[in-house]
């Protein structure tokens, strides 16, 4: 099969890009691949919202830029931060035009939330299910576009490069080119190849590498691994953001249930296996210390005792107060046999977000020709060493847009796909690159 624009991933990055290229080139074919159901993405689970400067009386681009740089702890690319903050506002307006609803005040202004690390209120949200709302709006907009073919249950195996034409490709090879992908169609159980002059990788995060994660089962880092196998550049993978308190449920596949930090704000106390309220040993603010300190303290207690969890004690809450503030948490705990008024809640840190990824430039271009990357799988330089809350959805839209502009211009210049005699009859049989090399 052949297509004009190939997109891997149906989260916010992939769908935003697909909509834009389809709109700009109505006579071209856009193919979007996704490995399970179309809406099963990290995007769907985003709760908090999307950051953007909306109220220019109180807030400013400079403040959002400064907050992002502080979170990134010296490692952000300032130029990229400026791009994302300034262009982000237009992207938010676009997704509203495409039909996403964000909560509003009575006077019609957007309700703006404030999150850790933000100096002003600037988080647009849709109740606590912002990602689901954005995913819904995007999928609906996609279904109205005649030239987009969304193929679900298509598992991408590898990107096709000169390697598959029999050439030796190493890290030092200049001009590695991407011609499309090999995909395992899970409906027919056949392996197919899809050729395309331009490919966008928007394959999301990799939280599943850890025992506990807030990411759904699809988040296995496929895109990063494929690009690494194809000798593309990967950057800053050590920066994994953890949520300090997810419900500890051994052996679950998929994501762990989040126990919001607001429970500690309301008086929940962290205890170790011995029942000791350990936070007072780490910080005078005890359970209300900043997230990093709490996360490290929990990690340390688990390491010392050699256990997989600590406990959050809410037994002193009245049932009425707890169920009023945290009805979902109450129900969820009860469903696994934990009555929070009698038992402590087992909690554990969970992998939440990957700051690093496939290295891209300011147009979303990877080190492999004709291959773009956007969203969580990409490393644009925005997050640096730590992500500011609610910047990731914004980043995905800004770079999907920038890649679309570059890709549409490029398609006109590109020659046809290579064809000729020298075809290596293989996808899989080539020796896989050893990670040590």
């Amino acid at each position, binding site marked *: 099969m052949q297509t004009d624009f190939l997109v891997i991933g149906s989260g916010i990055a992939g769908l935003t890009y697909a909509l834009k290229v389809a709109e700009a080139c109505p006579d071209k074919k856009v193919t979007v691949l996704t490995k399970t159901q179309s809406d099963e993405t990290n995007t769907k689970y985003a709760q908090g919202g999307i950051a953007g400067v909306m109220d220019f009386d109180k807030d400013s681009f400079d403040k959002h830029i400064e907050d992002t740089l502080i979170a990134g702890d010296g490692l952000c690319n300032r130029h990229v931060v400026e791009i994302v903050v300034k262009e982000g506002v237009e992207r938010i307006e676009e997704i509203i035009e495409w039909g996403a609803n964000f909560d509003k005040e009575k006077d019609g202004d957007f309700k703006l939330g404030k999150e850790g690390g933000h100096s002003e209120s600037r988080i647009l949200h849709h109740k606590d299910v912002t990602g689901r709302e954005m995913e819904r709006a995007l999928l609906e907009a996609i279904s109205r576009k005649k030239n987009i073919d969304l193929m679900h249950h298509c598992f991408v*195996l590898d990107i096709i490069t000169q390697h598959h034409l029999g050439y030796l490709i190493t890290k030092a090879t200049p001009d590695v080119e991407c011609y499309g992908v090999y995909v*395992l169609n899970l409906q027919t159980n056949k392996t197919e190849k899809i050729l395309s002059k331009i490919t966008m990788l928007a394959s999301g995060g*990799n939280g599943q590498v850890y025992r506990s994660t807030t990411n759904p089962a699809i988040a296995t*880092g496929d895109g990063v691994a494929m690009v690494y196998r194809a000798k593309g550049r990967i950057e800053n993978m050590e920066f994994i953001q953890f949520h300090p308190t997810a419900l500890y449920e051994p052996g679950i596949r998929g994501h762990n249930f989040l126990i919001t930090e607001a429970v500690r704000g309301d008086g929940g106390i962290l205890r170790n296996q011995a029942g000791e309220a350990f936070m007072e040993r780490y910080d005078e603010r005890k359970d209300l210390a900043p997230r990093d300190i709490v996360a490290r303290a929990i990690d340390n207690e688990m390491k010392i005792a050699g256990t997989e969890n600590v406990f959050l004690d809410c037994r002193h809450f009245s049932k009425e107060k707890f169920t009023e503030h945290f009805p979902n948490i109450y129900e969820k705990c009860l469903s696994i046999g934990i009555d929070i008024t009698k038992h402590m809640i087992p909690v554990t*840190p969970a992998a939440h977000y990957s700051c690093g990824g496939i290295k891209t430039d300011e147009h979303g271009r990877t080190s492999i020709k004709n291959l773009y990357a956007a969203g969580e799988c990409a490393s644009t330089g925005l997050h640096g060493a730590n992500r500011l809350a609610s910047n990731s959805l914004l980043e995905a839209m800004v770079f999907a847009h920038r890649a679309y502009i570059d890709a549409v211009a490029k398609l006109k210049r590109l020659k046809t796909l290579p064809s000729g005699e020298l075809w290596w009859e293989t996808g899989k049989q080539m020796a896989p690159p050893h990670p040590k090399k």
Partner: protein
Amino acid sequence: MVGDWKTDGTTAPKEMILITQSVKELKLLMSDYVGIVRNNERLHRAMKRLDLLYTETEALYQKTIVSPQLCELRNMITVAYLIVKCAEFRHESRGLHFNTDYPGKQEMIQNIVL
């Protein structure tokens, strides 16, 4: 044109346990050794274990028909390797990366590219 995916000489995996057990091992070792707080000893141990998982999984990959489970395992091993390798290269504690053997920050700002 580009060649089709080749399946000659491969068979369906006989036992899923070969895959699911490796996934479990991978997740455990990453959470226990490469979680929030890291040190050189833990990173070194993680790498040794990843090496074994890598060797076993590549051997399985070469002789079985591809399945999403096997491919995801393979991808997760690569991603875990990249996380550990980047963590080993960073001789400082910065942002989300905290290594008790290098508690301070280096003056030189460095992106680690593999």
